[in-house]
């Protein structure tokens, strides 16, 4: 009971002016700072009041801090000094656990390895990529829609009905027809949930989990892509494994983009998730606002100053991939050797990434 009264007193004390009472201070110290937490107050109204007050205080403090920082910056600028260093927020990515497998730009062995790996024939333009897209045994609604979107994204991709063929048979067939990759869209409960990318003739097999799929027709204000060969953006594939996966993705697309088409396909890796986006961009010239007013003043100038801005329009599907396994050789679940498999004991930290 005594405690309760104490707390309510605490709550009340906030409103009062602080009295330098020795007894109270001592008591507070004995109880520790926890007694100050508003969540310990049981009366809801009081609690809400205290909480709001605390929040307000924090807000004011933060604003003060920001103002002080801005002032310091301004002052430094006026004095011509170096502005105080900008604070960089700590994120999971930039506090990533150091990894020795990260590729370095001066690694000769890496380049020598790249020259002879399975994708080099396609990436050196010796073979043009030709993709076979097929599905899992059962396939309905979102699966075919996703595949038709994929076909519009990847040039020279051909859809083949799965039928009842074994995947190994399909790989054999694709090899004979000189395809360079096979993509299998796996559907579960009418929703595509996995992607299997098989390099041919002896390239690795990557198994991705597919999530957050948004089809083209579900994207608001989506554009309609042209049939030009797209540009490809691969970001953040840093480690050896990431490098390999990146090269594998690269080998799906032709290596000579047609810049006229202004189409970009992005594979962005962040925390081991690979985000896929497909955009159309345009450079527009626009009269800049600041100089507009000037232009009005002196109207006799023939061409008012312009600036170019890039505008993006999203088209095509949007989805996220996560690598589950990378298998050496073509698809073989029973006898295959894995280059990388995700195992639960590898998740030792949330700051450890593999791509």
């Amino acid at each position, binding site marked *: 009971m005594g405690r309760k009264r104490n707390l309510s007193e605490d709550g009340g004390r906030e409103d009062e002016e602080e009295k330098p009472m020795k007894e109270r201070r001592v008591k507070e110290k004995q109880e520790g700072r926890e007694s100050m937490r508003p969540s310990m107050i049981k009366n809801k109204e009081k609690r809400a009041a205290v909480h709001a007050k605390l929040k307000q205080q924090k807000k004011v403090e933060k604003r003060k801090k920001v103002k002080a920082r801005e002032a310091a910056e301004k002052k430094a600028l006026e004095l011509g000094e170096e502005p105080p260093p900008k604070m960089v927020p700590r994120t999971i990515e930039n506090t990533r656990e150091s990894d*020795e*497998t990260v590729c370095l730009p*001066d*690694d*000769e*062995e*890496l380049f*020598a*390895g790249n*020259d*002879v790996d399975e994708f080099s024939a396609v990436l050196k333009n010796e073979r043009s990529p030709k993709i076979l897209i097929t599905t899992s045994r059962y396939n309905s609604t979102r699966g075919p829609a996703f595949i038709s979107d994929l076909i519009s994204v990847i040039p020279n991709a051909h859809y083949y009905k799965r039928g009842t063929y074994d995947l190994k048979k399909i790989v054999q067939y694709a090899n004979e027809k000189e395809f360079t990759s096979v993509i299998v869209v796996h559907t579960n409960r009418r929703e595509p949930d996995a992607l299997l990318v098989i390099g041919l003739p002896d390239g690795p097999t990557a198994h991705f989990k597919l999530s957050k799929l948004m089809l083209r027709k579900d994207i608001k204000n989506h554009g309609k892509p042209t049939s030009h060969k797209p540009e490809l953006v691969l970001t953040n594939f840093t480690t*050896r494994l990431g490098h390999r996966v990146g090269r594998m993705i690269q080998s799906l697309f032709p290596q000579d983009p047609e810049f006229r088409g202004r189409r970009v396909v992005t594979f962005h890796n962040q925390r081991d998730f690979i985000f896929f986006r497909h955009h159309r961009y345009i450079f527009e010239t626009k009269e800049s606002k600041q100089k507009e007013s000037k232009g009005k003043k002196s109207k006799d100038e023939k061409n008012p100053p312009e600036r170019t801005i890039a505008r993006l329009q999203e088209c095509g599907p949007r989805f996220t991939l996560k690598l589950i396994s990378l298998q*050496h050789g073509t698809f073989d679940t*029973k*006898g*295959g*050797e*894995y*280059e*990388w*498999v*995700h*195992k639960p*004991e*590898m*998740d*030792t*930290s*949330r700051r450890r990434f593999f791509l």
Partner: protein
Amino acid sequence: MPRTTTVESSGCPPLRALTFDILGLIKVVEAKGEQKEAPKVVEKWGEPDASRCVLAASLVDREFDPLLGVARKSGKIEVLSPVNGDVRASISIESQNHPGSADNSIVGLHLFKGERLGSSSRSCNLLTCTSKGQANMTYVKMSKSLEDSGGESTQTTWNVCGSGSILCSKVDADESYALFGGKGVEVNIWDLNQCAKVWSAKSPAKNSLGIFTPTWFTSATFLCKDDHRKFVAGTNSHQVRLYDISAQRRPVVSFDFRETPIKAVAEDVDGHTIYIGNGSGDLASFDIRTGQLLGSFLGKCSGSIRSIVKHPELPVIASCGLDSYLRIWDVKSRQLLSAVFLKQHLNSVVFDSKFSTREAQVPPQQQDTYEALQTEEEEEKTVKRKKASKEHSGSKKLKTKKKSKRSKGDGNDIA
């Protein structure tokens, strides 16, 4: 709850391991000193070239004049000195057998320690086996210079199997018997002195559902040093089998291990512990007498294990494979002692156990100079990294210097 484990590399005892990768590079990893330092890549031999991809390697591990045999993808077999990487001899097997057959690559290589066909320090004997089943015993004369090497070699060739493809071959400790097995080939044992088949296994019976699993051996090893009659084989259908020649043609003990094919089997010196590595990177030790799991080697091993070796003296094993790490494990505690990242997919690893005694043979003065040279060399390395090829040739020179000193030292010893 965040799962945080701090894996402390407790350091490994002084050892020297040689790894072979798909670009044909041979990397020497050494852990030195009593301070239990982490092992480092000390030397790198060869230039990256995919056609020189190492398929098999074998080491004659002895104090005086050790030899290292390396089978390349191009069909060449090189005999090197594991001390400094000098090529002592190089012969070509493929051209003599099957010109133009691409899939007839070498799968097994063994370098004989003992005397055979009057071998001396200037020559050695090799047993190679190709995937088509051509076993080949070659007698190679070595010379100091590369030019006149490979000129004299006598060969005996025989066929191990009619069909199927050989995937594993091993020679027992006495070097008088060899075993071969593979896809569609039951394990068979050959007497190397007579070149005659001694024994062949019989496939296990159909299971209760009447399903027959096709024969597909992926790895095999003889169980103990002094007995050629017992051996362990791993199959593609993730089964490990113990065969006893003197008992029966079917496996004595067989058990399953996980769900991916067994890719590497290694024996311990005690004669009953075996180490098994599989296609998804699981490594475990078994007591083969009972078929019981002794324990798994847990670590962040994520790629298929291609090769496991036990150190002949220390309680340490090394594993390597497609995750391009050389991992060194303690056998007793099954803890990871250290992992070295070696950049390429690794095909095999060997331990050079006598290196410490060899180093001790070098008189202290010369060793000091050698170390001074080495430190200089390391400084050079840091300064000009980009000129690795130049630097490499320089290091070779240094090594040859050292070698000549060593031979001098040997001479003194003999005197």
